[in-house]
């Protein structure tokens, strides 16, 4: 049973982007994320940007190792997407916006 989740799915997306300082890579990741969300999740997403340089104690909570990391807090289950989010297809898979089977096909 493959549960499809797509644009017709109306779940709220709660996303958290971990960065470490205003590096070009983190800025790029944020830009990429913004674009994907606008395209696929318009009106039903929230993005929270956490800078670990300012709040290092937060790295432990979500077990953040790689920077940048995008954490999908909602809908459950929790998912992590690392990297600068330049590979849109993989970001969509990571966010469960495409089924995995579609990706591998």
């Amino acid at each position, binding site marked *: 049973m493959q549960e499809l989740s797509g644009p017709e799915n109306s779940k709220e997306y709660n996303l958290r982007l971990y960065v470490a300082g205003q590096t070009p890579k983190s800025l790029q990741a944020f830009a990429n994320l913004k674009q994907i969300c606008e395209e696929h999740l318009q009106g039903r997403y929230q993005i929270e940007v956490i800078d670990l340089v300012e709040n290092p104690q937060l*790295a432990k909570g979500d077990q953040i*190792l*790689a920077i940048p990391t995008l954490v999908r807090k909602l809908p459950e289950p929790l998912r992590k*997407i*690392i*990297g600068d989010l330049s590979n849109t297809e*993989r970001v969509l898979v990571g966010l469960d916006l495409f089924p995995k089977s579609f990706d591998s096909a």
Partner: protein
Amino acid sequence: MGKNPQAAETLPKSPTGVKGFDEITLGGLPKGRPTLVTGGAGSGKTMFGMEFLVRGASDFGEPGVFVSFEETEKDLTANFLSLGFDLNRMQEEKQILLDHVHIDRSEIEETGEYNLEGLFVRLGYAIDSINAKRMVLDTLEALFSGFTNQFILRSEIRRLFLWLKERGISAVITAERGFSETGLTRHGLEEFVSDCVIVLDHRVKEQISTRRLRVVKYRGSTHGTNEYPFLMDEGGISVLPITSVGLDYEVSSERISSGIPRLDAMFGGEGFYRGSNILISGTAGTGKTSFAARFVQDACRHGEKCLYYAFEESSSQIIRNMRSIGIDLDPARKQGLLRFQTVRPTFYGLEMHLTTMHKEISEFKPTVVVVDPISNLITVGDPEEVKIALMRLVDMLKPSIITSLFTSLLQGGHHRMEMEPAASNSMVSSLIDTWMLLKEIESGGETNRILNIIKSRGMAHSNQLREYLLTDRGIELIDVYTGPAGVLTGTARTLQEARERAESERTEREIERKKREMEQMRAKTEARITELRARMAAEQEEMERVIREHEDRKRQALHDRMRMAHLRMADEGK
């Protein structure tokens, strides 16, 4: 144990506090640099790392962070509580910080370029929060299962080690042992850590497992290169340094009594040298344990602390048996001066025995150690191994001026006086200072016990074979009786003594008789002398009477002639 101050100065080191390890490495791990600890599953990597932190925090005032990629904080705390480390308390006191880094591959999707700055931030935060000087990463290789991009990962790990070095953290990084012969670790972590590499090993030989540790590499420092056996138990890790002991230890010329005055007399009147080692070898039932027990009892009476390794009997059995010959070890044990360690030799390997002994000796600090019998260790190793083990044991005891007594069971018959069973012990001879041989000899339908001092270094000692008895008053050495056929023992000795006594009595009677005869003879002689004298006196008297009569007669004649002349009116003479 031979510290080299020069080597310690060239490179600052952070002492681990792991027993024996700082001796091998002449001071500990490189300070402010990463060290790689590699080994198979269950080889003690985590334990080593944790002890490095705990000892560092409690003994050397260096707080530390333990970063675990495998076990959770809760598991770690529970596991190490059983080893005597109260990690909860140490965390509250900010001496230790446990940090579990969870990596779950299934949750992570990789989309483009990234770095591990998150991990750096996290480690940095942990270090700053307790002002840590030490860190353990256990095991960093878990990262390899969490990330697919090996290129990024390797460069980030390289950066991590540089970062640790820059921050001056003395770090221990653990890694799984590699499968190939050449690779020390599964993911080649050794290429990043070039300062110090330690390999832990867990080997099973003939069903007996031994843990070993080896310092493969230590840049800028000399170190012991051997494989060192080590022990993990409730007190943490103890490593037994083998080669760090030289032959340049101090010796004592003080003496320690064997507990048997007449035996002391055989050793120049004062007994053994303190800090020397004594081997008592003998066939079964010759009283080796009795000699050992007597020695221990006497030493304890003089306030010495004794550690007694019993490989054959339980401590209560020894105490009961020794009581039957008048040696009561119980008071010394109750006073805490005597401690028994009873363990089956096959319980663990030779190395482990040594390591355990080393640990117990450094804890209990005895002045006398007894190993009864050392020959039982042969059952867990071949003779050559036993010799090496014995050498290490001796090297361990001598520098601390611990007097040690080993007993050794000799195989073979007990009906001959030849030394050939001793030859089997000749391999240990060079290690032994004083060697006593106990034997049973058979003659006249009985066996008797004799002892013989084969050697005793540095003292004049008796070369006499001596018979001894195990009585209810202890061990008694009997007066020597040597006859034309050698030393006589047992009833043969008693018989010979009786025979001699009879002989001497007879001689005495003979002398008495002779004396009387002589007396009679003198009396006779004197009687005859008296008689002769009397006869002579009589003869003389007779002779004098004759002379007197003759004189009388002559005078009478003259008188008569003068009267006649007067009567004849002759002239008055011419």
